[in-house]
C-alpha cells in the first residue's frame, strides 16, 4: 500500500514536470559538506541548550568529518552540533540533505554551529564540494522556510508561481 502511495506521488510530480516542461538548467545539482550527522540524544540536546519542536532537537551532531572535505576545511569537528545551514534550521537529516541538494558545488555555505564541549555558538563558512550521489526523484530549487522568500522573489522577477511541496515524513 505504501509503495502504491509512493508511486502515485512520484507519478503526480512527474506529470507536473511534464505539464510545464523542464527545458532549462536551474543549476541545482547537489553538493556535499563531507560530514555524517545524527540526532543529538535527549541529554546532549539539553546540555547544549538546543531549541526543539515536538521533541526533535534543532541541530545535528557531527559524527564524522571527511579528511580534506569542505567541513574540515571550514573548521567543523566531530562532536560539534550543526544548527543551521544558510539560515535553514536543521531538525533532521532530510533538512540537511534538502539544503545540500539545492546547493551547488563551489558555493559558500554559512554554517551556524555549537562547539563540542563548550557549546559556544560560532558561524563558519564552508565552500561546498561536489556530490557524488546521484540526484533521485523530483528536483527542488529551494529548500526550507528560510528560502521561501528567495523563491517568492524569483517568482516575482520572472512572473512565475511558487510550488511548495509539504512533506510530513518522519525522518
Amino acid at each position, binding site marked *: 500500500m505504501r509503495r502504491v502511495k509512493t508511486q502515485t506521488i512520484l507519478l503526480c510530480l512527474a506529470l507536473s514536470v511534464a505539464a*510545464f516542461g523542464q527545458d532549462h538548467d536551474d543549476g541545482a545539482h547537489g553538493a556535499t559538506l563531507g560530514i555524517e550527522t545524527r540526532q543529538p540524544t535527549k541529554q546532549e540536546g539539553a546540555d547544549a541548550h538546543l531549541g526543539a519542536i515536538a521533541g526533535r532537537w534543532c541541530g545535528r551532531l557531527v559524527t564524522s568529518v571527511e579528511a580534506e572535505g569542505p567541513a574540515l576545511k571550514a573548521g567543523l569537528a566531530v562532536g560539534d552540533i550543526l544548527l543551521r545551514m544558510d539560515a535553514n534550521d536543521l531538525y533532521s537529516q*532530510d*533538512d540537511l540533505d534538502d539544503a545540500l541538494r539545492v546547493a551547488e558545488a563551489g558555493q559558500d555555505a554559512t554554517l551556524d554551529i555549537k562547539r563540542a564541549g563548550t557549546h559556544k555558538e560560532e558561524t563558519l563558512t564552508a565552500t561546498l564540494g561536489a556530490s557524488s550521489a546521484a540526484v533521485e526523484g523530483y528536483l527542488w*530549487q529551494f529548500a526550507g522556510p528560510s528560502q521561501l522568500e528567495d523563491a517568492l522573489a524569483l*517568482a516575482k522577477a520572472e512572473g512565475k*508561481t511558487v510550488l511548495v511541496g*509539504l512533506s510530513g515524513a518522519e525522518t
Partner: protein
Amino acid sequence: MEAVVRVIIRRPHAYKFAADHENSPIPGLVLLDAEGKVLGAVGLPVDDPAEVVELLRTK
C-alpha cells in the same frame, strides 16, 4: 521554461507553513502567487494525478 519555482518544506517547518497558509495539506502541494497568496492546493497522495496537473494550471 517552467512556470513555477519549486520549494520543498519538510516537517516540522511544514506545520508552521500550514499554520500560516490556510488549506495547506501535509503532505501536499501548494501553489502560491509571487506575493505568497495561496492559489490552490492538493493533498498527497491523490486518486487522480490530473488533480495535480489541474492545480499547476491554476494561475
